[in-house]
């Protein structure tokens, strides 16, 4: 069989397609680092990598790169910077604030191929993972060890841990366990000048300033995470999921405040209003009552005796605030379906309208009822539709405005309502974003919350990491370079929705 490999190689040589020479020097240098197959400059790639999971639009992506190692990310960054080009890191593109939406044709550094779980240390309860590892894949991988990764954003089946770090993601269970930052022990980072450093430490905390803390939530403006050391959380010995349904949204909201006031901290407290219930029930078959104005999902975990007591107390509090029924999920299957409905909410809206604008603000829990009714008013005044689905325990609102972008004039009304909701939240003592980040979407609202001096201080931190201003520019801080493409449309100054 001497002929076989020889024939094959001859045939292979003939089959090689003539490759076009690369004219763009930036592309040529990137190809030199990654090879042709992992550098894409076609119209298709540039168009697909121009958006994330939201309707936020900026400019167009430049060259799209798919590095597979820390060294390759560092090389992509160095090449971009040496050409004076900005770069934007991007994971699965499920973000909701345009953090990975490009402006001004940057080099897109896509981390989805860095999806290796490098090391799991069960004894020390930590794992080193690539930034492209899908959030849920890590917990699946840990099955049988008695450990899991606690941050569980609703997009956890698709979003990457690199993205979770960039936005400091939350999720239903962050009420008890804390947001992503509390679960990141250390990060290996490619800094905007191409240098590779490790921020934080596996054990305890690194000496000096907590730069790991500064980096988490940096939205790619401080560098690119290439390996992440995450804290693993012990699976609770007992979990109970309750579903309470109400005639009035206020009943659900008041129950949430009362539960916390009574000294109970559930693992999760989630509210969904009637429109959300209608949209997700046909997909999730969770048994949500379709005639309820709102349902409240309560998850309790801990030692069996404590969970049992808490169930009784929540039943009493819920009933006192108008709960019609209190159902405790009988088995794992019922639990899964209740959560499947909650976590599919934002993807299920096409049942009602083809576009959504998912806002994300935080308000003091005690003012839930009042702010929610203001949100409904704002929407009604503008003849729009809102679906409310949110992390009630954290006071983290997610008004989901649904619309059909093809309707003339609807965009302006959606924009206006979004801005009004942010204003109401901040005035109620809340903040701009709970977990989606500022990105392009919210940067124009930063001055609602921060004084010029605050913003200047944040800008100085950013420049300490990114001297040239090339790491995901035009994001987060209003003082950054603007997204020229959008400004020329004469609409919202930075970041708009189409």
């Amino acid at each position, binding site marked *: 069989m001497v002929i076989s490999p020889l024939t094959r190689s001859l045939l292979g040589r003939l089959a090689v397609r003539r490759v076009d020479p690369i004219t763009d020097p930036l592309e040529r240098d990137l190809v030199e680092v990654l090879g042709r197959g992992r550098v894409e400059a076609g119209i*298709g790639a540039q168009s697909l990598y121009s958006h994330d999971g939201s309707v936020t639009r900026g400019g167009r992506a430049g060259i799209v790169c798919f590095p597979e190692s820390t060294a390759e990310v560092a090389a992509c960054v160095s090449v971009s910077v040496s050409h004076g080009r900005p770069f934007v890191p991007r994971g699965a593109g499920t973000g909701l604030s345009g953090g990975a939406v490009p402006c001004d044709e940057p080099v897109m550094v896509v981390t989805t191929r860095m999806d290796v779980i490098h090391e799991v240390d069960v004894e020390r309860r930590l794992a080193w993972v690539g930034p492209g590892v899908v959030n849920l*894949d890590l917990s699946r991988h840990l099955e049988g060890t008695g450990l899991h990764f606690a941050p569980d954003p609703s997009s956890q089946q698709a979003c990457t841990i690199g993205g979770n770090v960039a936005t400091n993601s939350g999720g239903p269970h962050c009420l008890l366990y804390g947001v992503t930052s509390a679960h990141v022990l250390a990060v290996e980072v490619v800094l905007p000048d191409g240098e590779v450093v490790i921020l934080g430490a596996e054990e305890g905390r690194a000496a000096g300033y907590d730069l790991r803390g500064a980096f988490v939530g940096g939205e790619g403006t401080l560098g690119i995470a290439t390996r992440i050391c995450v804290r693993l959380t012990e699976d609770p010995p007992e979990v109970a999921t309750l579903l309470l349904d109400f005639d009035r949204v206020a009943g659900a909201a008041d129950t949430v405040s009362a539960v916390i006031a009574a000294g109970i901290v559930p693992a999760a407290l989630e509210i969904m209003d009637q429109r959300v219930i209608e949209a997700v029930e046909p997909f999730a078959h969770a048994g949500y009552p379709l005639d309820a104005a709102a349902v409240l999902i309560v998850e309790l975990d801990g030692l069996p005796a404590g969970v049992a007591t808490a169930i009784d107390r929540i039943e009493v509090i819920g009933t006192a605030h108008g709960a019609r029924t209190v159902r405790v999920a009988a088995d794992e299957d019922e639990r899964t379906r209740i959560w499947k409905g909650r976590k599919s909410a934002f993807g299920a809206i*096409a049942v009602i309208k083809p576009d959504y604008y998912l806002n994300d603000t935080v308000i003091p829990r005690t003012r839930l009822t009042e702010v929610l009714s203001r949100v409904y008013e704002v929407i009604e005044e503008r003849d729009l539709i809102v679906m409310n689905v949110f992390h009630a325990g954290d006071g983290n609102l997610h008004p989901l405005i649904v619309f059909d972008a*093809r309707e003339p004039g609807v965009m302006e009304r959606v924009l206006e309502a979004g801005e009004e909701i942010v204003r109401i939240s901040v005035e109620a003592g809340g903040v701009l974003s709970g977990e989606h980040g500022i990105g392009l979407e919210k940067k124009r609202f930063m001055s609602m919350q921060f004084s010029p001096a605050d913003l200047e201080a944040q800008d100085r931190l950013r420049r300490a990491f990114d001297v040239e201003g090339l790491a995901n520019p035009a994001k987060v801080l209003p003082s950054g370079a603007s997204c020229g493409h959008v400004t020329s449309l004469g609409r919202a100054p930075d970041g708009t929705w189409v």
Partner: protein
Amino acid sequence: MTPLGLDDESLAACVQCGLCLPHCPTYRVTGDERRSPRGRISLMRAVEWEGMTPDREWLDAMDTCVQCLGCVTACPSGVPYGDLIATTRVAVAQLRRPPLKLRAGLWCLGRPGLLRWVTTALAILQRLGLLRLAPRTMAAALPARLPLRRPRLSAAGCPPRSEVAPAAGDPPEVVLFTGCVMDAWQPEVHGAAEEVLTAIGVTVERSGDRAGCCGALHGHAGLESEARRHAERVISVLTGDRPVLVDSAGCGAALKDYGTLLQTPEARAFADRVYDIQEWLAADGRLVTLPSAGPENGPRESVIVQDPCHLRHAQGCHGAVRNVLAPYVDLVELDDEGLCCGAGGAFSLVQPGLAGDARDRKVAAVARATSRSGATTVVSANPGCALHLAAAGLHVRHPMEVLADACRRSETDSGPEGEGNEVSEHGR
């Protein structure tokens, strides 16, 4: 009409949330939006709504879809992606002819006599070791040991290669759809299906050469008129109102879709009497008459269940495989939520790189299941998946083969008065 002829509301239904991404086999192995359902829909929109002219990159995005429909199951908004990609494939086939090797293969499928002749020729080449000279992708798509000639397998006295013609006496109760390539390459599966049906007292007739190929692969390739021609022929040959049982998930999905493909009342009526064989057996109930493999028959075998996409995502009857097998073997589940193995009909032939990478993930999932349970046999109710996985060294069997074993066991256990005595007359 728009360039691709897509339904505007279906195209608008995607909200681009990205929850489909992890359920797409080609996105999973490339991490590239252009290899994802969300990306493909976005690119369809670019052509339909923004006047983009399809270029090589665009065609490549559409060509690399396995059409496994995993994204359809995952989509909370119910985007009919299957219809979108099918219609797009039709437009693409008109824009640019499918590759020659694919067209040649599909042409063969419609000619059962030729297909068997080619199979025998390939089997001889394989025995002589000469197939190793063939391109690796083609060799990998073939079974490890092609049959030299079709074994004499039959039930209820039907000669092999029987046409659909009523035998003397009562007409057989069901028709077993034998198709094209499966009939030529994996005749033992049809044999096992007949054996199981006969063992529980169901008389069977094979659809045979006159019904021939279902046209599923032609449809996947966007060759709509050829797919229609096959559908019309199958319907015209398989008349009557007897159930049509299918032991290939891909063919079953295609036959059930004839109503949508042809849009005639006749086609819809036909589609209504098509059943996946596991689905039919689970609903029929007679299967329980087989004595189950209890401790007295030695330890139960454990098998790993692999759901073919056309069973799980297209037909939604993957539960039936578990229902019919559970009394006889211990079932081990995979932990990959039914992610496609990359076989996809002719996909493994036209996109060998992606198909191989997708298979690597499946093989890894099988390895995890093996380390959990010790089971090494994989059951798959689709010939494409079976061939594709077997080429990676896995031991793959059809659920009907596992059940046929149970029949044979019951035959030896229960003696001449048992249900198995009918089988012994026709056994191999």
